[in-house]
Each structure stands twice: as structure tokens, then as C-alpha cells.
């Protein structure tokens, strides 16, 4: 057999590493030219395999991103949409406009930024908590377990617009279920409150986002729980550890790597989420729930000012890069300490 002893095939026959010594193989006795072409194929193959993914990522993500950065430096208004190479240069003025917190544009952006941060932190924390509670309580065998698991995943499976549009019906002032329960049945308010405009819209968007995102946390954490070896629990049970102790000493520490990824992904998805507020509120969100993605969309497509919108997007990306880098640095350091 010519199977290489290394666990990764990269070191063996399929090696694309030009520095590695040629492994002993059946083809090794062929003529030099044939060997060269085989070698070229081997080196080129991984690139050929990633080529389609690379081209698509370049076309839809990376090139547009570079263009987006370029757009943030020009005065791209509705007059130049069809012929945007003719748009006059703007220098840093789009950025000045976006971060001038005394001006109306900058102030609105800052406000939207803080609304989004608060919204994201609350939603991620609660999503994680509900997902964790659900996954832990679903441990063990009991009747209806399979049904409940399927049920909990339905909000995640539903298309955003279908789920969220139903919430907007529930939250209608006159005909919605929420006011019917709170006002008509529980008599908590004397007058029917508005849920989709004004102060309350912030709570509405949190509840709706939570409803959509906690099943994802639940799904990932359930998969994570399945990977914890059962004998850990059995051994600790013999040592007399109770349920709470097992949760603290086994379940939570074992889930830490899963949690690290889950929280980051939830943070980025919630922070960037456009679909939920857009379907719930429409093109212009109420002040109190003016999430950043809707805000930028509104500044770009409703007012047709793409330059400023791009500058805002670039600032947003820089912020997310910073948060992700710091987060990865902290979590990986903690992991190497442990």
C-alpha cells in the first residue's frame, strides 16, 4: 500500500506543496515529462476546485466592497446613477457628513448606532439564554420531545417575511392579538398602546427578533450538547454530583467553544439584520427602532444619496471588523490560558 502515514492527505499523494519530497507512488517510475504534467495537475487541482467559489465571491462580495469604498469618496446622487464615473469627487466630505455629530445626518447616524447596539446586545443575550434553556431542558427522554423540537425550529424555518408580517398583524393597535390580551382581557392599559410606532416599537423589534433567532441558538446548542461524551455525566454522577453541579461543571465548560462561535455569529447577524425591521416597519423605521441597516438603506435609496450611504456602510464595516478582531483576540487568549 502507498497510503501515507500522515493523517492529512496534504502531506501525501495529493500534495500541492511544492516543497515536499515526492511521495513513493506507483506512477513514480514514469517518464520525466509525464511526471511533470501529473505534478502540475496535482498542484493546480486545489486551485481549480476553489475557482468557482473564488470567482463568485469576487463578483458579489469583494469587488462590490472595493467599489463601495470608492463610492464613499464621490458625490453619487440621483443625477449620476446611470453614469457614475462622471460623479464629482467628494474627498472625505461624505465621511465628514456622517461623523459630524452636531449636524442632522451625523446625529441621526449616531442615534441609530446606539439603538442598534442596545437592540443587538439584548437580542443576542436573550436568544442565547432561551436557546440554552430550551436545549438543556430538552435533554433526556420524555414524551413529545421530538414534536417540541420540531415546533421550536418552525420560526427559524419560516421565511422571514411570513413570520414577521404575522407579528406585525399581532401588534396592530386595533385588530391585533397583543392589545386584545393586554387591554381587553388583562386590563393592563386603559388605552390601547401603539406597538409599531413610538417608544414601544423598540420592544416590538426585540420580541420579534428574539422569536426568530432563539431557535437558531437552540439548534446549535442542541448539536453541541450531543457532542459531550455521556460518560462524563455518568462519572460525575457516581461522584455524587447533582444536576445543577453537572450543568455548571460539565455542560457549560464543554460548550464554551460552541458558545464562542454562536455568540459571534448571532451578534453579526442581528447587527446586520435588515429583513426583520424592514418587514415589520416598512421602508422607514420609527425613530426609537431605527436600526442601522434600515437607516443606511433609507439614506441611500429613499433620498438617493449613495455617496453618504456608502460612507456609512464603510464605517459600519470597520466597526464590525474591530469588534470581531477584539472578540477573537479575547476568546482565543482565554482559551490558551485554560
Amino acid at each position, binding site marked *: 500500500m502507498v*497510503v501515507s502515514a500522515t493523517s492529512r492527505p*496534504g502531506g501525501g499523494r495529493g500534495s500541492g506543496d511544492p516543497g515536499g519530497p515526492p511521495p513513493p507512488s506507483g506512477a513514480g517510475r514514469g517518464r520525466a515529462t509525464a511526471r511533470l504534467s501529473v505534478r502540475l495537475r496535482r498542484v493546480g487541482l486545489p486551485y481549480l*476546485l476553489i475557482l468557482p467559489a473564488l470567482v463568485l465571491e469576487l463578483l458579489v462580495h469583494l469587488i*462590490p466592497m472595493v467599489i463601495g469604498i470608492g463610492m464613499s469618496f464621490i458625490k453619487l446622487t440621483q443625477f449620476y446613477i446611470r453614469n457614475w464615473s462622471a460623479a464629482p469627487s467628494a474627498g472625505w466630505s461624505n465621511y465628514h457628513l456622517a461623523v459630524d455629530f452636531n449636524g442632522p445626518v451625523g446625529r441621526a447616524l449616531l442615534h441609530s448606532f446606539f439603538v442598534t447596539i442596545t437592540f443587538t446586545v439584548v437580542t443576542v443575550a436573550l436568544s442565547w439564554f432561551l436557546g440554552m*434553556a430550551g436545549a438543556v431542558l430538552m435533554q433526556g427522554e420524555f414524551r413529545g420531545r421530538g414534536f417540541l423540537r420540531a415546533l421550536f425550529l418552525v420560526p*427559524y424555518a419560516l421565511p422571514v*417575511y411570513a*413570520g414577521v408580517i404575522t407579528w406585525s398583524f399581532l401588534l396592530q393597535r386595533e385588530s391585533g392579538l397583543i392589545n386584545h390580551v393586554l387591554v381587553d382581557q388583562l386590563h393592563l392599559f386603559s388605552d390601547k398602546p401603539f406597538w409599531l410606532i413610538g417608544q414601544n416599537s423598540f420592544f416590538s423589534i426585540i420580541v420579534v427578533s428574539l422569536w426568530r433567532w432563539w431557535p437558531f441558538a437552540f439548534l446549535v446548542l442542541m448539536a453541541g450538547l450531543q457532542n459531550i461524551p455521556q460518560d462524563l455525566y455518568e462519572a460525575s454522577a457516581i461522584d455524587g454530583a447533582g444536576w445543577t453541579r453537572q450543568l455548571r461543571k460539565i455542560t457549560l465548560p464543554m460548550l464554551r467553544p460552541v458558545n464562542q462561535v454562536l455568540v459571534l455569529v448571532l451578534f453579526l447577524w442581528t447587527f*446586520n439584520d435588515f429583513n426583520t425591521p424592514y418587514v415589520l416597519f416598512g421602508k422607514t423605521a420609527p425613530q426609537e427602532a431605527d436600526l442601522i441597516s434600515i437607516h443606511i438603506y433609507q439614506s441611500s435609496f429613499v433620498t438617493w444619496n449613495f455617496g453618504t450611504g456608502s460612507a456609512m456602510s464603510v464605517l459600519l464595516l470597520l466597526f464590525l471588523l474591530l469588534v470581531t478582531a477584539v472578540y477573537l483576540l479575547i476568546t482565543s487568549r482565554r482559551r490558551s490560558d485554560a
Partner: protein
Amino acid sequence: MRDPRWLKWVRIIGLGLLGLFTVLPIYVMITSSIKPLKDVQGDFHWIPTTITFSAFRDMWSTVPLAHYFVNSLIVSTIASVISVVVAIFAAYAVSRFKFAGRRVFSITVLSTQMFPGILFLLPLFLIYVNLGSAIGVDLYASRTGLIITYLTFSLPFSIWMLVGYFDSIPVALDEAAKVDGSGPVGALIRVVIPAATPGIIAVLIYAFMSAWGEVLFASVMTDESSRTLAVGLQGYATQNNVYWNQIMAASLVVSIPVVAGFLLLQRYLVQGLTAGAVK
């Protein structure tokens, strides 16, 4: 693990509340779809007083729902299938080969996950508009443009998950196939893909769902002829009337394919996550 007695009650109450929270909108969606219009415009009632299926009949004519449905189906199916094939090749390369740029490729692909969609929506919109007029390929407001866009959305997550999945398949299996005379691609097709079927199905569901539910790009990149359900459902709210019963009926109908598919195949998603992503 022996459960204490109190845990039983925590479980019943905890799971009960979660179940209630989950089910509330679904209950309203179903019951409101069989109410007549006047019953969804007045005070809310838990139990429908009059049951009618007229909303399920009228929803096809209030907006061209069937047309949007077909658009969504074409776009989501093609995008998810291509995306999975592309992801399989890329994940195989990352999992089985050491090549210069491997780490850069993985990191670049994953980092696109954190880009706000709005950041490349504007440039992509302009690229599609200008490319259309320059070379005569209709990308803006066409299903082709939407397919290309959507298939890249699920790509990073798909590649990431499949790399994890492929890594968990013993390399000895590939080697055995190669001894039998297959090249690396033969080993991928004959050994790795069959062994990774649960992961591939999971990725396919994910890709289809994300395309079926996408709103932002659909709202900017489509016109009447290429409009998908995500935007089309907003047509039930006209200036004079909001047909809530038809909205609920249509939401129900457009959700059934994805929810049914998801629930049938969810164990693959959990398996795929267990083997790959959360390992």
C-alpha cells in the same frame, strides 16, 4: 444523569412558555387565514366565529401570487443547487489539500459573512445596472442576477460546514479509493460525497431557505416580472385596504414548502452541525 424532582416542573413550565411564545404567531396565522375580511379588521377573537376559505381563493387574484411563487421557486432552486456544488468542490480542496493561499481563502470567504448586506447592495446594484447597459446582459431586475447574488450568500456557511464535515471523514477512505484507481476527484465523487450526504443535505436546506426568505436584495433587484414572494406579499397592503386574511393565507401557503422540507430534513441539519460546525 438522574433528574431531581423539581427539574420536572422547571421542564414543564420552561418548555411550555417557550412553546407558547413559538406557537402564538403560527396560531394567529392559521386562524386568521380562515376568517372573513371584516373579522380580521375589527377586534381580535381567539376563535374564528365564521369560517371561510375565501382568502385562499382570493389571494391568487389580489396579487399575481402564482407568478411570484414560480419566480421564488426558480431562483431558490437554481441558486441553492449551484451553491452546494460550488461549496463541495471548495470544501474538498480546503479539507484535503495543502496549497498556498488556503488559509487566506478560508478566512476571506468566512469574513464575507460579517459584511452588512447594505454595504455591497449599493455597488452591486450599480454594477448590475451598468453591466446590463454595457454588455447587454440583463442582470439588474432579472432572475439571473438574483440567482448569482443568492448563491454567494449561502456559500461561506456552506463551505465552512462542509469543511468540518469532510474533515470528519477518515482520509483512509479516500486513499482506498485512490488505490482502486480513482484520482482525487474520483475519490471525492465515489467516497467523500456519499459519506457526507447528511452534511450536503443540511447545506442544501440552508441555501434554499436563505434564498427563499431574502428580502433586502429582492426589494431592490427585482421588477414586476422577476419579483419574488419576499416582495410580492407586500402587495396585499394597498392604500385602501389591508387584506390581513389574504396576507395570512398567502404566508401560510408560501411557508409550507420550506417548513415541511426543513422539518423532514432537520435531523440532517443537526447531524451536519454536530459533525462539522460545532465540533
